[in-house]
């Protein structure tokens, strides 16, 4: 591991100032991704800004009438177990407790989880594998490699790495907003605009500017919350990354779908909102047939590789199951 200078931030302002004086520094919260990648030599920051002492970032409040507010340093396990979230926004709670293990959820922060980097083995594996994300311009070993877990949506000829997180997928379904503090002050960005498509620059993963830190995640209060789920299909039943996952939320009126939200995880290069699939459901009854049609609509633009074509049908069925589970939660 490369040696680094250690800086301890006591406030958000501290962290922003430290980033301004150490442009290549990385912020460390739980460290579950960053420290892991530093051990692998994939991340080699010359300076670490430890933000675990920034108490103002750790709080969260799910009792508001207009929005739920989560400090970016709140830990995944604490938020997953919040009674209001479990009851009124099950998709948010499930997206947290169906990720990683309780040990890792006790460590990992919400902000860090949203920024979790890909699990692509060629990215993590280092030399001799080419990876445009790790070494820009070096190529992509996954394109002709074992691409069973790689993305079907949002790929480019330069990168097919899957965005691995779950919480951000549920946040995208609920139109969450991030508050970001940087050298030029505070700004807010929709969660959907945080992650970039790989395009020609897979190494540029987010739209955060230099020296910016996520301070809060805000979720607008919505009646879509109650009838929602985060459905996650894995190689084993627990403690694995998604082969496919879906955050789904519905409201019903007179036996027909009034509003629908669908976001996909484990199958795309970023948290993926499936708007066309949502619109196709509005005004229709929710049956196995209409749910499956929505599922396949969500994968209309999928591009398959050598070993991952099975995940189109798997993904479509994941969406269909998620919609039916979500609807069942509001059918009293």
């Amino acid at each position: 591991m490369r040696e680094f200078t250690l800086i301890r931030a006591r406030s958000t302002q501290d962290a922003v100032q430290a980033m301004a004086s150490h442009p290549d520094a990385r912020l460390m919260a739980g460290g579950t991704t960053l420290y892991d990648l530093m051990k692998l030599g994939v991340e080699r920051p010359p300076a670490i800004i430890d933000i675990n002492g920034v108490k103002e970032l750790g709080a969260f409040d799910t009792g508001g009438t207009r929005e739920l507010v989560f400090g970016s340093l709140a830990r995944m396990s604490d938020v997953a177990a919040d009674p209001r979230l479990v009851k009124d926004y099950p998709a948010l709670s499930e997206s947290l407790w169906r990720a990683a293990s309780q040990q890792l959820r006790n460590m990992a922060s919400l902000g860090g989880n949203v920024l979790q980097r890909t699990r692509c083995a060629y990215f993590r594996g280092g030399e001799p594998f080419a990876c445009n994300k790790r070494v820009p311009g070096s190529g992509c070993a996954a394109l002709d490699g074992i691409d069973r877990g790689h993305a079907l949506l949002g790929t480019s000829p330069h990168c097919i790495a899957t965005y691995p997180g779950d919480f951000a997928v549920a946040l995208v379904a609920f139109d969450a907003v991030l508050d970001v503090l940087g050298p030029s002050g505070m700004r807010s960005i929709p969660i959907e605009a945080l992650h970039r498509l790989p395009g020609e620059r897979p190494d540029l993963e987010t739209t955060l500017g230099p020296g910016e830190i996520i301070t809060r995640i805000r979720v607008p209060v919505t009646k879509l919350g109650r009838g929602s789920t985060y459905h996650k299909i894995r190689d084993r039943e627990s403690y694995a990354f998604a082969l496919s996952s879906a955050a789904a939320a519905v409201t019903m009126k007179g036996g027909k779908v009034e509003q629908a939200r669908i976001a996909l995880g484990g199958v795309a290069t970023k948290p993926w909102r499936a708007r066309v699939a949502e619109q196709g459901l509005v005004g229709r009854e929710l049956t196995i047939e209409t749910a499956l049609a929505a599922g396949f609509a969500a994968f209309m633009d999928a591009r398959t590789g050598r070993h991952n074509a099975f995940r189109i049908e798997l993904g479509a069925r994941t969406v269909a199951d998620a919609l039916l589970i979500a609807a069942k939660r509001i059918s009293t």
Partner: protein
Amino acid sequence: MTTGPDPSSQPVQVNRREFVLSVMSVAAASGAVNAAPVPAQPAQAVADVPLTFVVNGQQHSLTIDPRTSTLDLLRERLALTGAKKGCDHGQCGACTVHIDGRRVVACLTPTLQLEGRRVDTIEGLQGAGGSLHPMQQAFIDHDALQCGYCTPGQIMAAIACVREGNADSPERIKEYMSGNLCRCGAYNGIVAAIGQAAGRMGEV
């Protein structure tokens, strides 16, 4: 809480692991006489950081390379070899310990995060007179291990699982213990042991 000397600055008794390692290195050296010499790693000028923390009730103050993991600190400097190194990447749970009462994986906790915090390891479980913790007894009662390598991590995770309130059904135990892998496949015994200890931990 007692304040003790830093064990790393004192001679530590050679334990079984160090003995095995030293034997292995002799064997490796004797088999490698014709191998090309390995170039020495250039010494890196890392700024050690001062750190004060508590392990199993005992306070430690030492300076340490901030790149060190809590797992390596426990095993290599404090001679607490209960927490095991399985994958070293947060994927197996064998290094599970408690920090400020919450279960974490020690391999992905850099020591830079330990300042002012309380670490509890399997070595600290023993009661007065060497009595076993109810979870340790339950693992024995239910044959919840075979080779035993994952067991310290399993037991530390299991105790936390009960305290969190996540041990009220076999299904919930399985979900909330999924971060601890057992390659011998003693899972049925582990789930049964946690179910038993969950009741008895409440009584103590």
